[in-house]
């Protein structure tokens, strides 16, 4: 196949857009399309301070990289979950979560951006597998923990919004799961932008909501971004993976199926909205948003040290310094008249702590 843009040898087929691109054109197209999606849904501006929640996986690391290239002011945060760090398979600090953190730290150094590291073991005295989660599946406890800290770090760090690497496959699988169970409350709030409510429930954005998981993988590989390739040990048999495989089969037979399903949902989402949203107060223990006296996270973890005054203050990110020139070394590309910079190659930052808002 030939590259649609330069006639070179294509390496990346983008079936939903009926095209293939070479390894030079693909990262620029990907960046431009990310920016277009950000603008379409009015997610954020280059004036705002953005916190990207990274996991060490391809999506979130690709997001951090591409948003920096586009000129957004993006710092990173990772919750060190302690998954796979116990048992015989790995010594503490050498398991799945530790390896994931290494990739996040590596990219932070290359981008020259600060990375918040929320170490659960240090903060709570226990890891995700050790949380007192009752009947809650471990992935549910993990998701709740990550959502809690991404919101809390964004609020306490003075950021304007939180960006996550959720892609089209994630969105479609979640939507399908919510429809199967007719969870109208979740359906009402799912989408590319989770709006800010009050001062403490931060806006959440998903700039990759129109990219397939395959397309984000291609970006990470072509840009030479190292990421954790192994599956989370807790994810085996997860329904979301079954849903994704099902949708990929549908997409193979009828391209555009996932995008039509998602866009159709977004057009009809308002019918799931309640006329009056439940009032949002503050959790009595941690002060984070909650519709009842204690937020879900505090109910799960009980009276953990996280509630001590200034607990997160002690986690302020160490300054990141620019590492060696990033792989790829692309020239800047144009996006809506704005230069897209390759921060991995050009930025030299030595930040300590967080700059003022």
């Amino acid at each position, binding site marked *: 196949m030939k590259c649609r843009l330069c006639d070179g040898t294509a*390496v990346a*087929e983008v079936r939903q857009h009926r095209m293939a691109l070479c390894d030079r054109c693909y990262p620029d197209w990907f960046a431009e399309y990310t920016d277009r999606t950000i603008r379409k849904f009015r997610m954020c501006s280059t004036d705002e301070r953005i916190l990207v929640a990274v996991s060490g996986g391809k999506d979130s690391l690709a997001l951090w990289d591409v948003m920096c290239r586009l000129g957004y002011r993006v710092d990173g945060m990772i919750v060190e979950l302690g998954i796979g760090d116990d048992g015989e398979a790995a010594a503490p600090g050498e398991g799945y979560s530790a390896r994931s953190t290494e990739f996040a730290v590596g990219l932070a150094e290359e981008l020259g951006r600060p990375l918040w590291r929320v170490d659960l073991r240090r903060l709570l005295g226990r890891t995700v597998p050790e949380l007192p989660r009752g009947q809650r599946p471990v992935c549910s406890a993990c998701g709740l923990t990550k959502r809690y800290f991404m919101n809390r770090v964004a609020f306490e760090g003075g950021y304007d919004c939180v960006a996550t690497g959720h892609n089209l496959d994630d969105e479609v699988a979640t939507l399908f*799961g919510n429809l199967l169970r007719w969870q109208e409350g979740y359906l009402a709030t799912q989408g590319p932008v989770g709006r800010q409510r009050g001062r403490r429930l931060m806006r959440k954005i998903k700039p990759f909501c129109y990219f397939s998981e*395959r397309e984000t993988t291609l970006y990470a590989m072509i840009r030479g971004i190292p990421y954790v390739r192994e599956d989370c040990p807790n994810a085996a048999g997860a*329904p*979301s993976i079954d849903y*994704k495989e099902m949708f990929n089969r549908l997409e193979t037979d009828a391209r555009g199926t996932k995008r039509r399903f998602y866009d159709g949902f977004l057009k009809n989402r308002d019918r799931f909205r309640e006329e009056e949203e439940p009032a949002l107060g503050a959790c009595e223990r941690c002060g984070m948003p909650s519709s009842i006296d204690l937020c879900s996270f505090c109910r799960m973890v009980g009276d953990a040290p996280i509630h001590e005054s200034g607990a997160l203050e002690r986690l302020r990110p160490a300054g990141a310094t620019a590492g060696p020139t990033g792989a790829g070394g692309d020239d800047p590309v144009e996006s809506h008249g704005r230069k897209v910079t390759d921060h991995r190659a050009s930025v030299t930052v030595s930040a300590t702590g967080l700059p003022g808002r």
Partner: protein
Amino acid sequence: MKVLYGRETYTFERPMTVKRLLEELDVVPEGVVVAVDGKLATRDVRVEADDEVEIVRAISGGRR
């Protein structure tokens, strides 16, 4: 050719396209990225008998 897919290794004697290889292994193309001798390859690329192929799963996820 030697084909790495997850923790499995497969061997095929005859050349074929990436598309045909994925069909042989019953792998849905939308869920993977293919590299031939370390270079990303589209589905029309012909894989020779002495090539090494890696099929990288793109799907990740967890349980609600």
